[in-house]
């Protein structure tokens, strides 16, 4: 599957899950900030990606689990350097540019861009091939 084909399928999933227009789903758009995703939408997106690509996504594989509850990773509402490294290791597909510029935990949603989802799906598909 080409990059454009993966992008198109991700776009369809997001249009369906978030009730946004096709032209809002741009590679750099963030799921929470630009596309209005809420926490439960992430579960919906995982389910829809699994169906669209015929893949299995483990809990915490695409979106992090309980990062904000770990005092080593988050202190006073800010992601610690250790937390940032852990997130990067667990989520190599994500885009950390905005979070590193302002590491407040409330900005953690900014790491999930449309392009990050495309990269994640491409990695899953190539691993399965």
């Amino acid at each position, binding site marked *: 599957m080409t990059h454009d084909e993966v992008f198109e399928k991700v776009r369809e999933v997001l249009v*369906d*899950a978030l009730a946004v227009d096709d032209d809002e789903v741009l590679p750099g758009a963030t799921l929470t900030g630009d596309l209005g995703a809420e926490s*439960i*939408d992430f*579960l*919906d997106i995982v*389910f829809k990606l*699994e*169906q669209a690509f015929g893949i299995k996504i483990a*809990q915490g594989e695409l979106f992090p689990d*309980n990062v904000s*509850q770990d005092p080593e990773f988050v202190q006073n509402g800010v992601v610690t350097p250790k937390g940032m490294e852990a997130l990067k290791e667990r989520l190599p597909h994500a885009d950390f540019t905005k979070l590193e510029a302002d590491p407040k935990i409330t900005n953690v949603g900014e790491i999930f861009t449309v392009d990050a989802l495309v990269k994640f799906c491409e990695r899953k598909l190539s691993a399965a091939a």
Partner: protein
Amino acid sequence: MRWLWIDRIVSLEPGQRLVAIKNVSMAEDHLHDHFAADEASGRPASPIMPASLIVEGMAQTAGILVGHTGAFREKVILAKVSNATLEADATPGTTLRYEAELKSFDTVGASCQGVVSLIDPVAPGEATAIGQIDLVFSHLDQNRAGLAFPDHNFVFGPSFKMILEQSGIDLPAE
């Protein structure tokens, strides 16, 4: 009034599909407000099943399917109505048929696609599809880390057990 928006489960394929029905009755108080006659304009009464309660009926149907799939160990909470379209009204004397299909299921939640049909007793053999309702459920205890909820399963209480028993569905062992 009990918060039960299905009357009977008519079939269950565990982990795949559950079909339930709801008989719409003129004895239901809410139908007399939805919609009452308007004397000022002369508009006659128009009792129709509220669409929000049809969504609830599908949520109960699909929720039981999800709960059954997890042997009723999880507290299954409706988290998102992904899609709801209804193209006809359900009036007193008709039967709503809710068919829920399990699309995804894992430790944190589940998703279902649902088809709503209407059965008119004038032609009881025919169920006409009138809409689709797609839902996402959360397994409450798996998603609210740090928040304590009661141990007992308050989602699947005595009323749901009664419907399951009345419908001839075996309850999982405790």
